[in-house]
């Protein structure tokens, strides 16, 4: 391969790596903004912990588990840490797309995003020790093993062979492998934790607990959209002009349509222009297109986005009705739209068809079952070690003071809730 092309490909992949890194700022701001000011230090601490812990865990075991080389298709391990192959820095390593180092860092940034999804859903009531241990275990075991089933060349990538076909599960950038992996864990831990004090009154009626900084949350959403250019654009795994530009178009159109879908449905359903639903709709559109961003036409990506946005609003109400408390809407965005986007690959785009829809469903169910099982086990484990939930007093007065002994707005407090 031409060395100039190899260099250009690798530069694009490093830019995408940086954009995916930037998504952690987006998640931090979104989660901080949609929760109350008394828990801001706690949210920010968790987000910093995940990017640092996630990357280190991915270095120690994650990369080796997720890309084991030749393996049985279910679980394999290439070894601890990084062990650069002889051709790791040449064009022959990954068809000239990137070097071994770029490969590790790009994948490592992805790994951390899966745990960040949990952070928002369990906000304002989980014990910090429990959260830290849970996310390390989840990132060390569940994310890379599930990832190996598809991106590591495991059984899902060739699932069509079981049915006498050549195809397999398709998840371009991780609607299922990243977003629903985080979403399932969020769902399970939210069920184990129970709702925040004051979320449901004695009659079981849902109460609003408004987030404390909507401008910050909005900033977070727009940063996430920017980061998604790297998340999806980098998942092309080289700088192929045709495919990268298509992926950026489908990604953006779906995000825009997701925002529209959500604000239209929420304004009809609830008779107000709720900016937080608009935000969740944009993110839903982004999550929804992620599985098939390389396969869709612009019009199809708009349809996927519109449905994602509408789905987010409906899912937020469902989750409320089930007495589950997700302060930031992470389950609606990452789980519901992650599953929808994955199934959409069998309905729209170049691979649409009953066979593909079957493979997509198998992937959703297999990964969902594995994620739920381990999230449950790890949840029970941390609960028996530390207790999963903070004391009532701590929750009412704020996690910042009790878990961290700090105040996010020390000299800038206007309201005590």
């Amino acid at each position, binding site marked *: 391969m031409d060395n100039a092309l190899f260099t250009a490909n690798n530069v694009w992949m490093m830019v995408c790596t940086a954009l995916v890194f930037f998504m952690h700022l987006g998640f931090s701001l979104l989660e901080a903004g949609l929760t109350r000011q008394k828990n801001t230090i706690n949210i920010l601490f968790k987000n910093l912990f995940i990017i640092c812990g996630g990357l280190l865990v991915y270095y120690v075991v994650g990369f080796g588990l997720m890309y084991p080389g030749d393996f049985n298709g279910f679980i394999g391990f290439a070894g601890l840490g990084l062990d650069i192959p002889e051709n790791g820095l040449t064009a022959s390593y990954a068809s000239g797309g990137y070097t071994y180092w770029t490969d590790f860092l790009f994948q490592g940034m992805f790994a951390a995003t899966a745990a960040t999804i949990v952070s928002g859903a369990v906000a304002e009531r989980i014990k910090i020790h429990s959260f830290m241990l849970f996310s390390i275990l989840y990132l060390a075991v569940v994310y890379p093993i599930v990832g190996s089933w598809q991106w590591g060349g495991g059984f899902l990538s060739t699932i069509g062979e079981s049915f006498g076909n050549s195809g397999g599960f398709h998840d371009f950038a991780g609607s299922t492998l990243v977003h629903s992996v985080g979403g399932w864990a969020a769902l399970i831990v939210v069920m184990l934790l129970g709702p925040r004090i004051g979320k449901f009154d004695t009659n079981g009626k849902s109460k*609003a607990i*408004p987030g404390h900084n909507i401008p910050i949350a909005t900033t977070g959403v727009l940063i996430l959209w920017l980061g998604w250019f790297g998340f999806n654009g980098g998942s092309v795994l080289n700088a192929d002009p045709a495919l990268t530009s298509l992926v950026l178009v489908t990604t953006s159109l779906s995000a825009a349509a997701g925002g529209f879908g959500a604000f239209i449905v*929420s304004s009809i359903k*609830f008779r*107000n222009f709720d900016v937080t639903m608009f935000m969740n709709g944009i993110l839903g559109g982004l999550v929804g297109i992620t599985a098939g961003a390389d396969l869709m036409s612009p019009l199809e990506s708009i349809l996927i986005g519109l449905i994602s946005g509408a789905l987010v609003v409906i899912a*937020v109400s469902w989750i*409320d009705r089930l007495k589950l408390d997700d302060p930031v*809407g992470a389950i609606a965005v990452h789980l519901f739209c992650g599953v929808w986007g994955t199934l959409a690959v069998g309905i729209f785009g170049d691979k649409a068809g009953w066979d593909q829809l079957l493979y997509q469903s198998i992937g959703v169910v297999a990964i969902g079952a594995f994620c739920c099982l381990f999230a449950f086990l790890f949840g029970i484990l941390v609960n028996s070690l530390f207790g999963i939930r903070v004391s009532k007093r701590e929750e009412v007065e704020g996690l910042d003071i009790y878990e961290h002994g700090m105040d996010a707005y020390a000299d800038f407090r206007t309201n005590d809730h």
Partner: protein
Amino acid sequence: MKKIEAIIRKSKFDDVKKALHSIQVNFFSYWDVTGVGNEKQGHVYRGIEYSTSDIPRRYLVVVVSDHFLEKTLNTLIESAITGEVGDGKIFVSHVEQTIRIRTGESGSAALN
């Protein structure tokens, strides 16, 4: 001398300030307060309706000479009224003494 304490809508503050200036009431203090009252503010957050009885208002204090009280009160009411629930209230009380710190002037002379 009388002290006038008025709780008014924040949105009417500029009108009130202008009106008071126009009758030569140039000095007064104000601060933002939160109170509860008859007005309920309807909100919807993520599909859940809620109402808050915490109402933000502006609280201002003017001290005037006795003979100026009625004019000031009329001006305040005219400039602060909208006719809707929540326009606020005015309290008037007697003031024993006023002293300007810089000069030591007291009584009405210290007011302007």
